[in-house]
C-alpha cells in the first residue's frame, strides 16, 4: 500500500516566484513530491518559493525535517523560501521548532508576495 498521500503542485506567480500548493500529508514519504515540485520551480527560474499549506491535512516531525533540507537547497541557489496558509496549530509548530526564524510565514499568498 502506498504511503504517499500528498499532492504538490508548483505554479508560477508574479515577481519571479513560484507557489507550491501542498495538499495532503507531509511526512517522510512526501520527500520526492516536494523535491520534484521544487525542481520544477527552480528549473523555471524561480527566485522565491512560497509553500502554500492551506491544503495541509497533517505534518509530522519527519515532514518538518523535509522543510529544512528544502531550505538548504533553496539557499544554495540564492532563492528565498516562504510559507503561507498555515493553521494556528502548525504556526505554533513553526514557532516551537524555530523554523519561523528561517522560513517567514504569512497568512496567505498575497501577503507572502507583498514581502518579495
Amino acid at each position, binding site marked *: 500500500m502506498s504511503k504517499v498521500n500528498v499532492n504538490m503542485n508548483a505554479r508560477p506567480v508574479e515577481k519571479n516566484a513560484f507557489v507550491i500548493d501542498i495538499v495532503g500529508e507531509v511526512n517522510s514519504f512526501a520527500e520526492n513530491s516536494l523535491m520534484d515540485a521544487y525542481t520544477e520551480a527552480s528549473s523555471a527560474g524561480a527566485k522565491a518559493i512560497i509553500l502554500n499549506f492551506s491544503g495541509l491535512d*497533517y505534518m*509530522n516531525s519527519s515532514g518538518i*525535517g523535509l522543510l*529544512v533540507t528544502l531550505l538548504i537547497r533553496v539557499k*544554495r541557489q540564492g532563492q528565498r523560501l516562504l510559507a503561507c496558509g498555515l493553521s494556528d496549530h502548525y504556526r*505554533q509548530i513553526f514557532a*516551537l521548532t*524555530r523554523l519561523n526564524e*528561517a522560513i517567514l510565514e504569512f497568512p496567505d499568498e498575497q501577503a507572502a508576495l507583498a514581502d518579495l
Partner: protein
Amino acid sequence: MESPSSQSSPDKFRSDKESQPERESYPAQDVSGRSVDSAWAQPVSRLRVENVPQGLTDINVRDHQVVNPTHGFGQMWQKTYHVRLSGVKITPAEVMRYWKASFPALQPPGNHFYPSLAGIQPGEILMINALLPVFPDTPGIIPMTSGVMVLYSDDTTFTVMTPQGFPESGWNTFSTFEEDGVTIAQIQSLARASDPVYEFGFRLMGGSGMQEKTWRHVLTSLARQFGVSGSFEMYKTCVDPRVQWNQAKNVWHNAAFRTLGYIIATPFRWIAHLFRPARPS
C-alpha cells in the same frame, strides 16, 4: 536511575486485542484514537526540567532554547540507521511501545538517558549523561550532562530536539514502520555540530564514529529483545557541506565545557554551602 518499565519483556507490548485492526497513522488520529495535534509538544520559549535526577545537573537545559539544524555551526548531515526485524510477527506500534518504555536500557555503557516520570511524551525532557571521546576509537572520557526535548510522539514515531550547547543542533527521529511485510526500526538524525569544538570532535576525534556505534548498539539491542539478530544498515548524506561561521559563538553554551566546569567547581560549591548563613526560623 532507570525507568522501571525498562525491565519489561517485549511480549508485554504486544496488543491484547487480536480483533483490533492495525492501521497507519491517518491525519486525524493515531491507532489509539489520539488526535495527532496532541502528538506535538506545546510551544516553549525556554526549557525547564521539573525533577532533575539525583546526581545530575540541569545547567545545560534550564533556560536554554531548543535549536534546529539551521542554528548549528558544522556541516549538516542526515544519517539514517535501520534494522529489519525479519522473521518475527510484530507490528510497528508494538515495537515502538517497547522502545519508548525501554529507551534507557537499550543504550550502550557510558550513555545514560533519564526520561521524566511521564516518559517519552511530547514536551518532556530526557536528561542525558554521556562520555564524549577525545581520540578516535577510544572510549568516551569527557563528561557531558544535558537533555533533549520530545518534540513529537505518536504511536510509531518520536522525535527529540536538542538544546543550545548540545553536541548537535537538530533532531533525531525514532520510528517504526512496515516494508514488504517486515517491521523496520529506524533512527534518523538531521543536525549540524553546534560549535567549532564539537565539529572538530565529530570530524577528527572520533565523535562521528562513536555516534554511529551508539545507534547501531541501540537498534541491534532492540532487535535482540525480539529474538532476531536484525540486519543493520546505515546511510548518510551531507545535506550542506558548508559550516556556518556566524554560529561559532555557540561555543559559549558548550555543554561539555560547562559540565566540566560544574564538576570542577563542586568542591567550592560544597564549601560555600557550609558557610551559607542558616535561614531564620
